[in-house]
């Protein structure tokens, strides 16, 4: 068991995360808190999966929100319109996320940096427009009403406490898989490609294949997140999956630290709690959110995940100034 944790460093973080979820589950006492916690778990998965694209593959995607939406709509349509069981819909959402994400990732084979950002943004935008326009399927701009609750073997997860448990189990399994993935042979290959594509190709690695694989994997995770979200709120509408949400996701990954599991999870926690906290300030809600993000961006360069590295440096500086 210990050997496993030694080999896959990030598993420790996932274990800590799952303990946190269990602990939270024991102390929370109403459905609002459980819903908030579930959203936090979904955001954690979303941000971590995008972090893989940015941090491990060195690519960018501004379509993550749209793929999240693909998952949500797939699950909503399958369960509510076609009566498919939840677990099947969840898998289908992951598959849909995977496939669409390959399309989003395809430009990465040719484009770099901001050009890639624009291309992914374009695909994301097109997807959101389709959510709006294909109203016979999606309910159009008004949204998809009356999504069925998640149901497994005849047991219906209407109660949000139970649904939180379900979301947590699914999320922890996915996170554990991702943690193992990044430190597997494939993960190491990815890092090699990120540092030098030319050197990696000379080792016989095919950069295009690996890049697309990360896009696909992250899309599959985002797709399942969408399914989990759709059965939580049981109502979805296009604006939730807009470009601004994708931009915010990228910001969260950067805030958390480009290739840090712990940072992504911490960013997800801050993001989810801040969202809940600022709502009561009415017109000031967006300002306060922006201010929080601004301060983090300016004063926490390197990401929250690197917070440990910031403090020693500061201490040293203090010591030095005392000495002089």
């Amino acid at each position, binding site marked *: 068991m210990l050997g496993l944790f030694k080999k896959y460093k990030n598993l420790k973080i996932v274990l800590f995360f799952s303990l946190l979820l269990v602990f939270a589950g024991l102390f929370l006492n109403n459905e609002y808190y459980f819903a908030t916690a579930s959203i936090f778990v979904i955001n954690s998965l979303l941000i971590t999966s995008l972090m893989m694209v940015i941090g491990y593959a060195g690519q960018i995607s501004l379509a993550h929100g749209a793929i999240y939406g693909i998952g949500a709509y797939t699950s909503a349509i399958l369960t509510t319109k076609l009566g498919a069981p939840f677990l099947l819909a969840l898998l289908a959402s992951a598959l849909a996320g995977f496939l669409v994400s390959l399309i989003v990732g395809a430009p990465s084979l*040719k484009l770099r940096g901001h050009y890639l950002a*624009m291309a992914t943004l374009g695909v994301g935008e097109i997807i959101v427009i389709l959510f709006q326009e294909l109203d016979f399927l999606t309910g159009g701009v008004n949204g998809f009403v009356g999504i069925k609750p998640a149901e497994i073997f005849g047991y219906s997860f209407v109660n949000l406490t139970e649904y939180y448990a379900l979301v947590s189990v699914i999320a922890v399994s996915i996170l554990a898989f991702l943690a193992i993935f990044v430190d597997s042979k494939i993960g190491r290959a990815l890092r090699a490609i990120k540092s030098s594509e030319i050197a990696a190709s000379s080792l016989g690695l095919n950069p295009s294949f690996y890049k697309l694989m990360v896009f696909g994997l992250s899309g599959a995770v985002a797709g399942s997140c969408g399914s989990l979200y759709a059965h939580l709120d049981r109502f979805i509408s296009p604006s939730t999956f807009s470009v601004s949400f994708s931009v915010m996701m990228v910001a969260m990954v*950067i805030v958390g630290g480009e290739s840090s599991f712990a940072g992504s999870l911490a960013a997800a926690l801050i993001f989810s709690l801040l969202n809940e906290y600022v709502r009561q300030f009415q017109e000031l809600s*967006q*300002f306060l959110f*922006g201010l929080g*993000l601004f301060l983090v961006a300016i004063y926490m360069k390197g990401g929250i995940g690197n917070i440990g590295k910031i403090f020693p440096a500061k201490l040293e500086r203090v010591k030095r100034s005392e000495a002089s």
Partner: protein
Amino acid sequence: MIETLIQLLISGAVLGSIYGLIGVGFSVVHTATGAINFAQGEFAVLGAFLAISLTGADLPHFFAVIISPIVLTLFVVLLFRIFLTRVADDALYLVVATIALSLMLKTLLLYFWGREPIGLSSPFQGKTLNIAGLMLGYDQLLIIAGALIAYIFLLFFFSKHPAGKAMKAVVEEKEIAMASGLNPALYQGVAFAFGSLLGAFAGCLVAPVSMLSYNSGGLLGLKGFASAIFAGLDRPERAVFGGIILGVIESLVVLFVPSGFKDVVALIVLLIVLTLKPEGFLSGGRKRLA
């Protein structure tokens, strides 16, 4: 039919000039910092609102349109000096800071100028030019002219003026630039301020034609970014044409597809162009060394 086509072409050029004017701001900031300024759209709205307030204080229209971008530029210089220098050398964090900035600016715009859209009443209000049945408002004409002026000015600035050349050098050959005594932080600040100046200028030109609200920045920014990318970020002045092409496509496409899918077609064209020419349609090609 042919008349409709030409009319759509003109509408597209106007719309595109708006996009392009905002787009050049993106490229200029990118030139020196390597970052994308997500608050560019909000800067444009802020510039327009300042001008509206100035004309509200009985200042002549042209005066307001000149003063407002300058005031905004000073504000941005201060903002950069105080906060953004800390992250100027790291494009990623600069990007996040501008995302945060756009959220905060929106609230400030809402607080000071209210929730409803406002328009700038220009002296040319309602005056139209009728060329053989084709209608073109003076204000629309002014937008196209403004875009062309911005193009010529930037073309000169980046190819002839030493400051323009230095600005480009700061990102392209950072070490060399620093060794030859250039201060990157300074040029980054200048580029940022310059970008906001262009944004505010764009806002002032747009405001008489289309009323802006505190919330308009997002859409303007998105289209501006697309124009800049269309043209290629390495040639800031060409974003004007990137915008015009985008605007014309959006406008003409309305003839053939339901207008709900107008943006889908424009984006697909953009994607195809990017696949064919990964550094932008109008870029100078891969001149930079890896």
